[in-house]
């Protein structure tokens, strides 16, 4: 046991180190034209055209733009392809020493799973092949493909793209590694920044569902004034049993909601499957949620999911979530719906 624990600690250190590795291109890729301020051929937007990506994820809201994390940033290390409905696909490139990133992923696969888990197969058993030398699918939706020593990562969690479509994009990107597109990033970043104002305004979550809203939804007088910040709002709802309350925590993630929803859903599905496999053996696959994203529950949201953990919904890339287990899910759902209705208020 001691050995196992120390092993895991060791691995976590290793994995963390790997995650911290800079994705920024250390130097221009071999064969790439020299980068200029106006047209950068070594940036993350130089591998896929807007047309190629829009054919998979839908019409884009504008030109693909560089971003650091979420905000547009001309020096950002990722390229975001954003649709008119605010779904987005993100491309990262490691121009030099991408192989070490794959090594880290190997280690993770080795610790977490057996070798067969690392194989890329479609549900129908088809083995995925492509222009890459090695590829790993991390989590639900991060496709990593190594060619030579260069790594292309496509995060498609925020889209409805399937794996076959993503593979077509990965292949197109990889084949462009030796001759990237010349891209002028500044105009695209400026346009993306101007589109930011069209997104729901970030504010206190308690403004989305006010005390009056909450009392109308629950038909009860709250024990205290709702308290929170831009991420949470806490509501103390009295229960029928004297002196007892339900603390409802309304959470909002203002950006990247589609992605977070997919990642959260996949993690929950995986956890549920592990539990079922432990209980019933290999081969059990129960799926995780009662209402997986994609099977739409009528409501003001773009995507909705209900599970034993709670209620989640996304509208305009904003994720609204209540995590109160299986209790009072109708109330939770009503809070989520109200918050979404008020996003643009």
């Amino acid at each position, binding site marked *: 046991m001691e050995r196992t624990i120390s092993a895991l600690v060791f691995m976590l250190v290793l994995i963390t180190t790997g995650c911290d590795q800079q994705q920024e291109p250390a130097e221009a890729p071999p064969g790439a034209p020299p980068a200029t301020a106006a047209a950068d051929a070594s940036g993350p937007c130089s591998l896929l055209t807007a047309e190629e990506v829009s054919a998979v994820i839908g019409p884009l809201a504008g030109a693909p733009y560089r971003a650091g994390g979420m905000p547009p940033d001309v020096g950002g290390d990722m390229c975001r392809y954003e649709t008119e409905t605010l779904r987005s696909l993100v491309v990262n490139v490691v121009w030099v020493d991408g192989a070490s990133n794959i090594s880290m992923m190997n280690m993770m696969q080795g610790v977490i799973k057996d070798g067969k888990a690392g194989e890329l197969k479609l549900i129908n058993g088809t083995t995925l092949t492509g222009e890459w*030398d090695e590829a790993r699918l991390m989590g639900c939706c991060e496709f990593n493909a190594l060619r030579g020593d260069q790594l292309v990562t496509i995060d498609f969690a925020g889209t409805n793209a399937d794996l076959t479509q993503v593979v077509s994009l990965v292949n197109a990107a990889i084949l462009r590694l030796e001759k990237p597109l010349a891209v002028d990033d500044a105009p695209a970043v400026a346009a993306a920044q101007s589109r930011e104002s069209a997104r729901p305004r970030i504010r206190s979550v308690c403004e989305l569902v006010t005390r009056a809203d909450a009392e109308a939804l629950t038909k009860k007088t709250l024990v205290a004034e709702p308290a929170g910040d831009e991420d949470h709002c806490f509501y103390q709802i009295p229960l029928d049993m004297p002196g007892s309350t339900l603390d409802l925590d309304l959470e909002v993630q203002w950006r990247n909601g589609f992605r977070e929803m997919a990642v959260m859903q996949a993690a929950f599905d995986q956890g549920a499957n592990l539990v079922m496999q432990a209980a019933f053996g290999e081969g059990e696959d129960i799926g995780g949620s009662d209402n997986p994203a994609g099977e739409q529950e009528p409501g003001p949201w773009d995507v909705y999911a209900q599970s034993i953990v709670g209620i989640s919904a996304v509208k305009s890339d904003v994720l609204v979530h209540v995590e109160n287990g299986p209790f009072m899910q109708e109330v939770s759902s009503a809070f989520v719906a109200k918050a979404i209705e008020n996003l643009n208020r």
Partner: protein
Amino acid sequence: MSQQNKLIPTNRRPARSSNALPGRFNLRSGTRNALPIFFIAKLCCFATSIAAQEIDTPILLEPDLNIVAAIRQGDVDYEGLRIIDSVSTETVVLRLSWGESDQTNAADAGMIEIPPVTRAIRREDLASANRIVATFYYGDPELLPGSTAIQTSTAVLSSLTSGADTPIVFGISPGPPNYMISSRKYYRGTVHLVAKERFPILLDGERTMVPVVHATGTLSVGTQSGEAEFWWLDQPDNPLTLRWKFLGDTVQVVRIDRPEAGKKPRSIFKPDACRAVLHGIYFDTASAVLLPESDAALARVADMLAEHADWSITVEGHTDSIGVDASNQILSEQRASAVRTALIERFNVTPDRLTTKGFGETRPIETNETLEGRARNRRVELTHGCAS
């Protein structure tokens, strides 16, 4: 001296003392011994002045085919054993299991026990893939579609022998083994035929000349490039990589032991000989731990003794010259004893019919200057009725 393995504890014998009998992962240089988290198949050709027979039957990819490669990476020298685990109409599955000392090092480095590594090669890739993934990592997917591992494909061999420049991709981690920082890169380029040659290997214990296709070309990734050389078995249905050299690394197959099953048992002693090398014995790295793959050879000895009830034999251990003399002497004695113990405890041989001796590096049968020579010198011999 190897400086690269700062996180790998040194709990093995001192520098250049990990002399090993035919085994695997024998690390022989530096004050630290690297944990060979990856392996590379590699082989060498050696002195043609030594008598060798010609290959008579093809080398088939069949279960229990054992391939021993001597590997030189940086200044680290070790061996790897690859076993054909299973074959089907779909795939050929290779197995690489970690030796006890590797597990110990892994544990000391804070890792969990390392399970065996297997690699499945699709038949279609054996036929046509031009990518060779020669380095094996813990955590690798079992299947890396579009690649071979310890061989090239029939199509590449055919292209080369037709005289064409042939594109290949070569996935390796050059330099000294160090799993903390090493990563497998894919070098691209074209190779062309140098010549068809003869290549010596120990095939089923006999020095044997096999036909090879010698090819060379420039391979590169990013700004790194170099001249690569390959020697592939000139057998279209199984073009094993018998040797490669690239970026200072050399991997050379030094032994191939074909499975005994279904074949007429070979006698250990040649007629009128009182001494014989016992082939098919594999030890863990720098230790006297016998690997399970040795069982077939041990069974042959037990059968021989059952057939000749009046025989007593001496088991001798020999090492190559790498390492400290005294350590080699001790290791040779320990390995001879390990063989004796296994024969007594697991193959029911009466103890008084077996004696042991260790000779360290004092009785080489070939030069110690080459990978292949050292591989031959690391051996177990049996003697019966020799004049002392």
